[in-house]
């Protein structure tokens, strides 16, 4: 099976869907000539031309609105917002329009728009360029929120997102675009709302999304080899709607859970999942679910400080050991 980077897997998904369906088009800042800030749309302009691969002005509100309108009229836009930090400028279009048009119109209008946008920290981008803001979208009913952690999922999920009839916030992560994994040549899809057990284990469940899946997996390996602890690692993949069942089942089995996220702690994906798990697996839990988040502060620029702000393998291992009394 060929090995692809996360960026390239996304690129393939776009190419395949654009070849299949004329109504799919891509627009955003620097997606065409530049090939996307993170190279995801590289080569698309040459292949599909300017009508379908379009550089836009720096107008986040405008281009999300553009995507909504085009989707309402039956096209399948894939709008790239360069990073999730800038999506704050398009929140009105997302929260008050994209998420509500179907409902407010009594089901007449559909908005099959995919917004692709990467977030995450760890690259010393500073306070305004390091955020993980997916929790805000999970808060709002009417949106599908997807967040792939590896090339295989990235491709299969983006293809699904484009085919699906709902508005999708498709969150990527800036510092995993070059990570590689095997990606089948045959067409495949990763379904919406289906978590993936990335590693089987019995002693504890570790849940993470995006880059934190890698962190969780590495922690799990070391917990096994260094401490004899068998950790199950689950990637929800879709954050809304959440595959509660898979998470709860695992926790019922292990009796313990750690959630690790790059989001800030409050009103976050992490505490929300923790609440759900503690509610639904209450009698199975040996200890409260532990949520490891980024520090509750804007992200600092300075490297050491930033590293301290972010969860890492060490913090996950420590949390697990503490929970298991080891």
């Amino acid at each position, binding site marked *: 099976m060929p090995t692809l980077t996360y960026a390239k897997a996304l690129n393939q998904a776009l190419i395949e869907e654009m070849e299949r369906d004329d109504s799919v088009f891509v627009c955003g800042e620097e997606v065409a000539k530049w090939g996307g800030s993170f190279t995801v749309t590289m080569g698309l302009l040459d292949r599909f031309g300017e009508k379908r691969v379009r550089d836009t002005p720096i107008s986040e509100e405008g281009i999300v*609105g*553009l995507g909504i*309108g085009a989707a309402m009229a039956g096209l399948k836009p894939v709008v790239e917002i360069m990073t999730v930090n800038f999506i704050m400028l398009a929140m*009105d279009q997302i929260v*008050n329009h994209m998420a509500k048009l179907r409902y407010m*119109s009594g089901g*007449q209008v559909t908005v099959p728009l995919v917004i692709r946008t990467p977030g995450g920290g760890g690259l010393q981008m500073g306070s305004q360029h390091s955020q993980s803001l997916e929790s805000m979208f999970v808060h709002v009913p009417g949106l*599908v929120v997807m967040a792939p952690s590896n090339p295989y999922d990235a491709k299969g999920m983006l293809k699904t997102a484009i085919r*699906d009839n709902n508005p999708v916030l498709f969150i990527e992560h800036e510092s995993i675009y070059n990570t590689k994994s095997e990606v089948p040549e045959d067409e495949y899809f990763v379904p919406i709302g289906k978590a993936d057990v990335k590693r089987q284990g019995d002693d504890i469940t570790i849940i993470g999304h995006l880059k934190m899946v890698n962190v969780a997996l590495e922690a799990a390996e070391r917990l096994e080899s260094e401490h004899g602890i068998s950790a199950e690692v689950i990637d929800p993949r879709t954050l809304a709607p959440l595959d509660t069942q898979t998470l709860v089942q695992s926790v019922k089995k292990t009796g313990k859970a750690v959630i690790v996220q790059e989001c800030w702690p409050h009103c976050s994906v992490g505490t929300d999942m923790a609440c759900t798990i503690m509610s639904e697996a209450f009698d199975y839990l040996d200890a409260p679910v532990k949520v490891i988040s980024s520090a509750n502060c804007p992200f600092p620029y300075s490297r050491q400080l930033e590293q301290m702000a972010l969860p890492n393998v060490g913090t996950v291992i420590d949390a697990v050991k503490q929970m298991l009394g080891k």
Partner: protein
Amino acid sequence: MQTGEMVKEMSVEELTKLYRQMVLIRRFEEKTNEMYHAGHIGGYCHLYIGEEAVAVGALNALQPSDYVIGAYRDHGHAIVKGCEPKHVMAELFGKATGVSKGKGGSMHMFNREKRFLGGDGIVAGELPIAVGLAYSIEYRGGDEVVLCFFGDGAVNEGGFHEALNLASLWNLPVIFLCENNLWGMGTPVSKASCSIELTERASCYCMRLGKVDGMDVLAVLDTTRRAVKYCRNTRKPTFIEAVTQRFVGHSVSDPQIYRSKDEVAKARQRDPIDTLKNQLIGEGVKRPDELEAIDEDAQREVDDAVEFAMQSPFPDADELCSDVMDTEYFSAETK
């Protein structure tokens, strides 16, 4: 064109239609106000009384396949673009038979089939969406245009700016129609916009500009027709400012402390319905009794609409959580 000439050139049917639509909206809105105060309608409710000539004139310049999108003062636009008054009234009543199944309400009338894509409650929220509708037309090589309504207040929102730049930059067929009724709630244009000439505010987007007397339905029709023709042929956007007047409060519950009774009284002297009525009678197109018959007929339609709304059921409980998403998510099996 002088609108006097237009009366001579247009068919009786066309002229009658304009008259009837304006009267229908007027009666509809009056009844809406009554039903609101009787407790049948809730929430925000913005009436179009006084401004009828704008929607009627502009929408009659379109072909049915053209898209329309607008703001929250949308009852009139919805009706002219093809929603039945009874379905609009039922929406106001929050009934299952409403255009949006009772889920949208006054600000969110929709009729996808008729290409009326809402009612938007966010000032200027519809402008970027209008640009997207136009993009879809160009994408498919169609000949439709998009007519996008918004108020004078919307001109100061960032979304206005981004939308007009995009439409101009990419040559997209949108007619941006600013319904300048001189006030955004209690704020006059002069306190909101650095220029009171709203065409000036749109002058930096390299698009054709027009200004029209929004109290004269024939002038609005004429100006919009030219704009539509230009837009349809050149595939470029245009901007029209229609200067109009709302004879009533911003919403049904506005005491209007910010403007004088005098101002409103003066505005009412240029009632667009009377203006057309006088033209029709003056040019011998219709007799007064014929117009009265139209008035009565409109009143009947509105009364029927209320009756229909009254009789209609409220949405079922399971409507609460339906239409949120297409819960049949795509999966490989459904391919």
